């Protein structure tokens, strides 16, 4: 299948936006403008972008503690995201959620989640709701290899299978649950295998290849919209940085391993593809990059200029 060029350009741009956003977070964090935890997505961009490019605005996603990439890809606003991680009132969540809880209901981002596996129930329930309300919306649950060992993963796959729910479980297997190699704590040959006993089809894709992720997702979306139920997609991927900003990411991972993944960088892969297929010129892609750079500068400046929430807001939004 050859994808329309506008989708390739869109994905390229989205990956750049994520990469640049995360690099900016690193600077903001180490510059003392941000507190708390920041789990960077650098290296995994093709997963969020490939998946979300195959979704509609009114489809749903649930995200993880490493969620900035998903939110950018699904249509979160860079300025509101930057403001949120900096705790400003102009943030998506008025500064109440921070990096691990960014949500934008207007574009179907049902929230990043600080609980490992926290999105399983919500995404599967959103799919149930779509089915009950008679829409053809689908829900995507992003989760990590670590979350694949949570019991609720198996509970929701059972629900999704018996009711043929329009949900897509997207596992980002970055090979480490925090600091622990996935293989040390995860039984079986693959995480993709785990849905098979439930009769849920699964596939494993190269998570550095946005096109492969897009194609796998598009197939799963089609199945879900037709009423044929859930899919599990395991994406083989890697985070270049540590578990969070405070973790250099070394010691438990070898230099060779990190370099081998960086050698097949998802953004470079797609750029090469676009250039090889004469879809756009290097100059055009560089222009995209400059635009993203400018957009990010504006987002950062706006966030920095935005006020913190009024302390009076502290007990607002507890109840509807």
């Amino acid at each position, binding site marked *: 299948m050859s994808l329309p060029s506008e989708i390739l350009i869109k994905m390229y741009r989205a990956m750049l936006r994520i990469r640049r956003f995360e690099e900016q977070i690193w600077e903001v964090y180490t510059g003392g403008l941000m507190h708390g935890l920041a789990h960077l997505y650098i290296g995994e961009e093709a997963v969020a972008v490939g998946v979300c490019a195959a979704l509609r605005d009114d489809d749903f996603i649930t995200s993880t503690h490493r969620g900035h990439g998903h939110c950018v890809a699904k249509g979160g606003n860079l300025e509101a995201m930057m403001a949120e991680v900096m705790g400003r009132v102009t943030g998506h969540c008025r500064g109440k959620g921070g990096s691990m*809880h960014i949500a934008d209901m207007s574009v179907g981002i049902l929230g990043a989640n600080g609980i490992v596996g926290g999105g399983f129930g919500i995404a599967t329930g959103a799919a149930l709701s779509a089915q009950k309300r008679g829409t053809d919306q689908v*829900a995507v649950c992003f989760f990590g290899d670590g979350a694949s060992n949570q019991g609720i993963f198996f509970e929701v796959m059972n629900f999704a299978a018996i009711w043929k729910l329009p949900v897509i479980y997207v596992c980002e297997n970055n090979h480490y649950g925090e600091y622990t190699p996935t293989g040390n704590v995860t039984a079986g040959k693959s995480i993709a295998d785990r849905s098979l006993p439930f009769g849920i089809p699964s596939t494993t894709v190269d998570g550095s290849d946005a096109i492969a992720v897009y194609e796998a997702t598009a197939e799963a979306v089609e199945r879900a919209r037709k009423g044929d139920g859930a899919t599990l997609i395991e994406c083989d991927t890697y985070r270049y940085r540590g578990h969070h900003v405070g973790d250099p990411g070394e010691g438990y991972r070898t230099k060779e391993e990190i370099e081998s993944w960086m050698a097949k960088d998802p953004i470079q892969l797609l750029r090469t593809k676009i250039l090889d297929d004469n879809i756009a010129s290097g100059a055009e892609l560089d222009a995209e990059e400059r635009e993203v750079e400018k957009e990010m500068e504006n987002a950062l400046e706006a966030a920095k200029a935005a006020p913190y929430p009024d302390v009076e807001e502290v007990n607002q*939004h507890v109840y509807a």
Partner: protein
Amino acid sequence: MSMREMTYGEAVKEAIAEEMRRDPTVFLMGEDVGKAGTVFKVLLGLHDEFGDDRVIDTPIAEAGLVGLGVGAALTGSRPIVDIMFGDFVTLAMDQIVNQAAKLRYMSGGQATVPITIRSTMGAGRSSAAQHSQSLHAWLAHIPGLKVAIPSTPADAKGLFKTAVRDDNPVVIYEDKMMYALKGMVPTEEDYTIPFGQAHIKREGDDVTLIATSSMIHVALDAADALAEQGISAEVVDPRTLVPLDSKTLIESVVKTTRAVIIDEGYKSFGITGEIASTVYNGAFDYIDAPIVRLGAMDVPVPFSKPLEDATIPTAEDVIKAVQDMKIIHR
């Protein structure tokens, strides 16, 4: 107001049926809620009326069940999720405490989570330590949740309908020992009871008995016996723990100057302690005797009947507590 006699269980069923007829986004799911009408049989007939689509049997998987409810509530549905025993709510605590209760706040007010979780409480059925607990205090502790705890058929119906219409996650606890309890219930379709309104079940002057759920009936029995001894007891039911109608509780104790608080949750770190503190703070200058707290004994609920009975507050316990206050009428 026109009234009809029905059981507590029938009142719950009628509330659910009316809300499902009124609002097509409401559906019910849980273990054995379908043709079986729950293990307590109180929802028999709902499945006949609404079918598989809206009265849905689920796997025995409480975390997933509540999790799906949360996701559905977040995206335009109003699910009622049935957890057959309150003890099993513990299996879904992440979904309730970390997800349902916090999504609105964490999203800065974007999310609404109109889920109703119904569950049971109460010992007395020789069901031992894992089918008898009253753990409502756990959830009343969590900001973002509302907790209703009706004591009569009328309250069950009115509070349940309010729960379904509320845009927040509501946990409603039914004492399974009360399902056959009869009472008069208003027949009007839109009979709802606002949350945060305590109800004075019996007026009195000498002592206030603040009681929840089935303990209301323990308190009313005690009030009858005390009346024969010349002591006038007022019986007050908070009806919802969150929000709590502190004002009515405090005003009653300001009037009577004494209070006994009765709740079937464990006594330590629970509802009775919270309410006692609230009343002390609000009525301190008027209080003539130390407030007495009666709760479930701090032991796992035992199986053997004589042991089990010893763990639950009784009317005799209430009467003795009031007698020990040595009320003298001047």
